[in-house]
């Protein structure tokens, strides 16, 4: 009964006394008095011999501690109860003790003996908890006792106690750093522990006490890698972060070859292969010593393989840790696997999103391709918090490329209408950055921004002006129109920053707008006194610049403005006025500087660089606090640079290998250390590779293994002659071996390392060379592997990173491919196949020649094609027979199965958003092909495929046509998929020309004009052209436009104009094309389309068609 009354007391107490006391009002005296009183009764309760009373008292004390109230004066009363038998009381006493022992060191000593007794308890849990509390008491006097207890616990039978010991280490270290050496000994001992329970805790201790003693990890490295998956989540994070640093010091950069390429010197690098001149050899050897061919250390591979499953962890911190490990350590081709997992984290709490997006933003700068397929996951929702919106915007901007810019800009257009003005401003800046990065859309962006100038919201206008100013600075000559437009705006815009920007622009480019500039100055002179300071400064600038260029008109005005400024309140402005006057107005004793006035004011200014704030952030380890803050946080361990040459890998060998898996690894590895036997190492890395990538990207693993196959093939030819010699060398002296290591293996090995880093270009060349020197007799088979290789290469590119490489590669790989196919009779077809593949980034300027080629052949193909009435429904347009066929799978590559496809321009009935693609299979083999079907489409996000029904059987020599539907999402990105027969799978991709992404619609002339009126500004592109010779009459114009794009003719009254209308298949956006013929063979072509990039590309294609 008494206890229940006590409980009620407590309840009452907390409501009547406790509450006001908690109200942050220590000034009122009543509280203190009641405080004292209450503490007295608490002491009484603690002194009683009833456990229930003690417990009640402790509960109340802990509640006080929790609220941040000072309860330290109760220390003597509480500490007495440390030996209390009641486990509940004891626990609460521990909580109290840990909190206040530091303040009451002497009294705390009273409790020590209890813990010492606990350390000897037969129950492991009691031992552990005694050690835990003992080490948590921050009393310096007991350091020796703690040290002793930790040492003892570190060799305890129970792993749980050992874990507690590991936890105690950093506690002792922070209390007394002097103990470091002894503690390191304990850490070393515990690192050797083989239980998962200890691993995480001891690595944490290692990180806090001696992160620099990396050598302690060597012997435990493989064990940690193997245990990792079973360690608890928090330990995993710590271990992975530590191993990232470790790997950076011990292994070689897996992307070394790429970085070498970037540095240049490609030529010499290859030359060393076939030129065996003596004099060159020396230089080579020196170069090679620096640039050893790269082979991934099996331990490096082990780490990558064992961390990968953890991407599936439910713990965001673990996923992030693995992601950063892959980012910092994995070969470029493999980094892609982390994208999916990181995108998954974006579903989590907003704080997690915030951190993940920061890291993704950094990653997207280096490896854009990785996140491109997930573009839509970064689309912004109106409910996102502003900070998340801005980060997503950053990521979207980083991801923008020629191919996806239209979708991104469309998104941006919606964002501009948001209510969140900070976000709108950020969007405008993002548009500016897209415009600077992607030259193609610069004009469209600029037009769009100019439209925003008439927005009602001042902030939007101001931000646009600022961004336009930056954009114009890049190419002012072409934009006097815009400058004029902005000059007009000065009457309306009130935001000072925007006004200042406009004035600066006019001043800077006053020569482009010679008539308007003085007038603007006149207006500004009138309002000078009412302007903000920054505007006044810019008026002065404008005046000075005009005076220098056009003194006749503006002399008086300038004088007037300078006079006004002379008496301004702001000293900066007075100062500036004085300065300018001295410089520009000629006086008797004008200074030496005035001669250079023009140079001073009208110097060519470098265009500002609009770049991501996340640039170069990756020198901080990703996922770290320092990375997030972009400053070094205390205790941050710098991520070391890769070593130039690998430290001795044998340090990780363990004398007595305990786990069978490792034994085999080790042996294999040792073998490798002794003699670089490529076929061997190949065999090892091959399966690993495919096992790793099995789940996520079938195509990559496939292409990998293909490469491996062909790679080893070519190696053999060289190695044959050398192999015997090499085997002997194993026993021979170091010197000779070194020499061989450096020179001979390099050839074949670099072939291997190339493929791992995805550098086909290099490899292909080498392949060619080796083949020539080695065996000329290799025929069909060889070229087959070659072409399949180049195909898989392009596929890999389209899905994965490094777009810069893509550009570089495209032109380079073509000639080589052609070379190899010299003996192949199918040369022309081969080329067209490759070209189609290369056609991929249609819009990039680098491939325009290809584009030319295609459209010319397209035109010739279409010669003789006569379309009488294009106004009719889509089905009657373009009979499929006359449609251009594209090669999907050459019959040699396809082992006798030839596949072609064409866009038959029929509506795809199962899904109107899909483009119908007619696929024509021809079986050229002598036996039948079965089960033709599609598998594993690899599509850009949003794209969809409707597969054709499986073809059960295709007899020899027969051919069959089927229709499939593809929703290209209105982009010209290729749809990649596997074409499977009963025996084989082929990677193929279908790339639509932009004109096939639309379907004709019927409009009347009035409707057309109305729609056109709504698609002005950013959505309208127009250009002048000269019609080709054969293209002077209406008929041929219609024919050509129709050949290029699937559009319907709009009937119109005037005979000068031809109009065409269509809509994109996927989103149904209108596409309007007008060709207005002028006298003398000229014409004006106008394309209106909501999707700007579609418009731009269509424009280009039609221009080509018409000009021939």
């Amino acid at each position, binding site marked *: 009964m008494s206890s229940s009354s006590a409980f009620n007391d407590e309840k009452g107490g907390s409501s009547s006394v406790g509450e006001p006391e908690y109200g942050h009002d220590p000034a009122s005296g009543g509280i203190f008095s009641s405080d004292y009183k209450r503490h007295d009764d608490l002491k009484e309760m603690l002194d009683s011999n009833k456990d229930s009373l003690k417990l009640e008292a402790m509960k109340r004390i802990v509640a006080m501690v929790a609220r941040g109230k000072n309860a330290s004066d109760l220390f003597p009363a509480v500490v007495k109860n440390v030996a209390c038998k009641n486990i509940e009381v004891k626990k609460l006493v521990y909580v109290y003790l840990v909190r206040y022992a530091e303040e009451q060191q002497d009294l705390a000593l009273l409790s020590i003996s209890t813990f010492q007794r606990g350390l000897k308890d037969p129950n492991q849990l009691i031992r552990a908890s005694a050690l835990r509390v003992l080490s948590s008491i921050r009393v310096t006097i007991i350091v020796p006792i703690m040290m002793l207890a930790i040492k003892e616990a570190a060799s305890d039978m129970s792993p749980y106690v050992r874990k507690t010991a590991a936890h105690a280490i950093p506690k002792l270290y922070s209390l007394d750093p002097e103990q470091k050496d002894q503690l390191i000994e304990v850490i070393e001992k515990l690192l050797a522990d083989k239980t998962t329970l200890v691993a995480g805790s001891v690595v944490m201790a290692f990180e806090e006490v001696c992160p620099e003693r990396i050598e302690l990890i060597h012997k435990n490295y493989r064990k940690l890698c193997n245990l990792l998956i079973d360690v608890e989540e928090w330990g995993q994070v710590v271990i992975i972060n530590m191993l990232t640093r470790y790997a950076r010091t011990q292994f070689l950069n897996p992307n070394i070859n790429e970085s070498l390429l970037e540095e240049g010197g490609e030529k010499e690098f290859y030359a060393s292969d076939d030129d065996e001149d003596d004099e060159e050899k020396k230089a080579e050897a020196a170069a090679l010593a620096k640039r050893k061919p790269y082979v991934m250390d099996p331990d490096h591979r082990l780490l990558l393989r064992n961390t990968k499953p953890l991407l599936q962890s439910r713990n965001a911190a673990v996923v992030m840790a693995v992601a950063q490990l892959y980012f910092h350590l994995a070969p470029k081709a493999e980094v892609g696997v982390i994208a999916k997992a990181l995108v998954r984290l974006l579903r989590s709490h907003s704080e997690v999103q915030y951190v993940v997006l920061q890291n993704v933003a950094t990653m997207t700068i280096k490896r854009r391709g990785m996140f491109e397929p997930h573009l839509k996951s970064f689309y912004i929702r*109106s409910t996102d918090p502003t900070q998340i919106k801005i980060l997503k915007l950053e990521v979207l901007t980083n991801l923008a490329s020629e191919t996806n810019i239209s979708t991104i800009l469309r998104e941006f257009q919606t964002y501009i209408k948001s209510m969140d003005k900070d976000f709108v401003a950020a969007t405008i800046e993002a548009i500016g950055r897209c415009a600077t990065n992607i030259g193609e859309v610069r004009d469209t962006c600029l037009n769009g921004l100019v439209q925003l100038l008439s927005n009602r919201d001042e902030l939007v206008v101001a931000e646009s002006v600022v961004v336009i100013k930056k954009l114009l600075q890049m190419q002012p000559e072409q934009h006097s129109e815009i400058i004029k437009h902005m000059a007009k705006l000065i009457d309306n815009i009130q935001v000072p920053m925007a006004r200042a920007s406009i004035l600066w622009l006019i001043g800077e480019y006053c020569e482009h707008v010679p008539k308007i500039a003085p007038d603007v100055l006149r207006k500004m002179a009138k309002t000078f006194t009412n302007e903000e300071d920054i505007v006044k400064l810019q008026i002065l600038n404008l005046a000075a610049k005009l005076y220098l260029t056009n003194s006749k008109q503006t002399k008086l005005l300038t004088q007037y403005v300078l006079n006004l400024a002379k008496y301004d309140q702001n000293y900066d402005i007075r100062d500036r006025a004085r300065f300018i006057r001295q410089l520009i107005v000629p006086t008797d004793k004008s200074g030496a500087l005035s001669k250079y006035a023009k140079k001073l004011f009208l110097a060519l200014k470098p265009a500002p660089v609009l770049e991501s704030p996340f640039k170069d952030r990756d020198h901080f380890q990703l996922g770290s606090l320092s990375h997030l803050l972009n400053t070094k946080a205390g205790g941050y361990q710098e991520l070391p640079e890769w070593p130039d040459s690998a430290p001795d890998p044998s340090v990780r060998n363990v004398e007595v290998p305990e786990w069978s898996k490792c034994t085999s690894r080790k042996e294999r590895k040792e073998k490798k250390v002794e003699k670089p036997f490529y076929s061997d190492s190949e065999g090892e890395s091959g399966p690993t590779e495919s096992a790793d990538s099995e789940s996520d990207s079938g195509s990559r693993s496939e292409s990998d293994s293909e490469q491996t196959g062909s790679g080893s093939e070519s190696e053999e030819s060289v190695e044959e002659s050398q192999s015997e010699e090499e085997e002997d060398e194993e026993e021979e002296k170091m010197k000779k071996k070194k020499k061989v290591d450096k020179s001979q293996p390099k050839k074949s090995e670099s072939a291997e390392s190339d493929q791992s880093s995805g550098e086909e270009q290099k490899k292909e060349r080498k392949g060619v060379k080796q083949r020539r020197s080695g065996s000329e007799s290799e025929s069909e088979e060889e070229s087959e592997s070659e072409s399949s290789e180049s195909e898989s290469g392009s596929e890999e590119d389209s899905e994965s990173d490094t777009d810069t490489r893509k550009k570089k590669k495209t032109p380079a790989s073509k000639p080589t491919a052609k070379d190899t196919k010299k003996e192949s009779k199918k040369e022309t077809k081969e080329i067209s196949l490759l070209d189609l593949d290369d056609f991929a980034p249609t819009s990039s300027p680098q491939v325009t020649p290809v584009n030319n080629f295609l459209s010319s052949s397209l035109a010739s193909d279409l010669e003789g094609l006569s379309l009488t009435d294009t106004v009719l429904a889509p089905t009657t347009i373009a009979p499929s027979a006359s449609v251009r066929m594209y090669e999907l799978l050459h019959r040699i590559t396809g082992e006798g199965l030839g596949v072609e496809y064409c866009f038959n321009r029929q509506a795809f009935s199962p899904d109107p958003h899909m483009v119908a693609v007619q696929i024509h299979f021809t079986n050229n083999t002598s036996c039948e092909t079965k089960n033709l079907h599609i598998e594993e489409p690899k599509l850009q996000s949003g794209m969809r495929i409707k597969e054709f029904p499986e073809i059960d059987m295709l007899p020899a020599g027969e051919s069959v046509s089927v229709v499939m539907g593809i929703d290209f999402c209105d982009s010209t990105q290729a749809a990649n998929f596997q074409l499977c027969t009963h025996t084989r799978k082929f990677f193929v991709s279908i790339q639509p020309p932009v004109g096939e992404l639309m379907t004709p619609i019927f409009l009347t002339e009035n409707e057309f004009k109305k729609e056109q009126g709504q698609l002005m500004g950013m959505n309208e592109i127009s250009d002048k052209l000269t019609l080709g010779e054969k293209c002077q009459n209406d008929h041929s114009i219609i024919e050509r436009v129709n050949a290029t794009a699937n559009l319907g003719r709009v009937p119109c009254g005037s005979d000068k104009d031809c109009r065409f209308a269509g809509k994109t298949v996927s989103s149904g956006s209108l596409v309007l094309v007008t060709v207005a013929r002028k006298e003398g063979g000229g014409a004006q072509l106008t394309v209106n389309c909501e999707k700007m990039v579609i418009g731009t590309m269509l424009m280009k294609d039609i221009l080509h068609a018409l000009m021939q």
Partner: protein
Amino acid sequence: MIHSLFLVNATGDIFLEKHWKSAVSRSVCDYFFEAQERATEPENVPPVIPTPHHYLISVFRHRIFFVAVIQSEVPPLFVIEFLHRVVDTFQDYFGVCTEAAIKDNVVVVYELLEEMLDNGFPLATESNILKELIKPPTILRTVVNTITGSTNVGEQLPTGQLSVVPWRRTGVKYTNNEAYFDVVEEIDAIIDKSGSTVTAEIQGVIDACVKLTGMPDLTLSFMNPRLLDDVSFHPCVRFKRWEAERILSFIPPDGNFRLLSYHVSSQNLVAIPVYVKHNITFREGSSQGRFDLTLGPKQTMGKVVESVLVSSRLPRVVLNANLSPSQGTYTFDPVTKLLTWDVGKINPQKLPSLKGSMSLQAGASKPDENPTINIQFKIPQMAVSGLKVNRLDMYGEKYKPFKGIKYMTMAGKFQVRT
């Protein structure tokens, strides 16, 4: 690692503090309050705030800020994830995680925090272990505690921390052995103003409630596991088995837990179960605006769309809305401009609509943005991706458990742009 934790309520009071190393003065939170002031919305408080000597990492949940104080480099996600785990644990223990619940159970909270971190490093975060150490408060136990004066501290020692299956407590006994699995899928979508889908994704989870005696070993297989594009598992799931056979094999924790969350591959079409016809217009120069919204079902596979709730934040110039719903009720908060319409079920024969006019601020120009419409709904007995559980088997124990699987589709972040 984590030095201290402060719990801050919506009004900016620190109502709980816990230190794992030397006490840090609560004045460090002043930096946090500053940042809070700068960010107008609580969601916009930066999760990481650097101060001269410390770093503050905070999460905001249930209208409480959990502010952790850090002194040196630590992965921010590590702390954030841990804080969320703390909130989840509180929710698990007290049913809700509110200021009142925490204040009422301050001793339990303190004991939990003590067990979850040791010297700032996570120690026991599995709810099964924690429940062994500290019994969650139940009504019965509160009564018993009142009479006997005992606390919730478990009598026995935490054996779970020693076992190889740290997520499952030992000696579990039930008279009715049952295992329930809920497959819940959420559709995240952005629909543009013309009604076409900008982006749509399906995210799903399988939540389990397993009450089985002993140490059961379960396997769960799907009819169509290839649907799952990206998955993340509870630590109990054997990853190798999944990789090899696409079968979930696990020794379940006792009680409620999230077995799996997954993402359905984006190549599959997402059936959008509702459509919205909207016409929200503001006329230039007049102080009236029209609001017209109709909902309808689409691709629901014959299932009823339930618990539909439409919400939208109208532009700032809207003073009031005078609307009439054909079914359900609507509210408009003139301060936050939040319009919510609780629709209920969608009857395909009689489509629910909300029509009427909005009165705008006099003299203000027409807003150039149109509001986004957020929609919530539930469709029971259907997994929109078509995912189906094939079978559930139990090994390791002799009894026959009762098994149940439930499917449900919900709207995740489902937005319609207008």
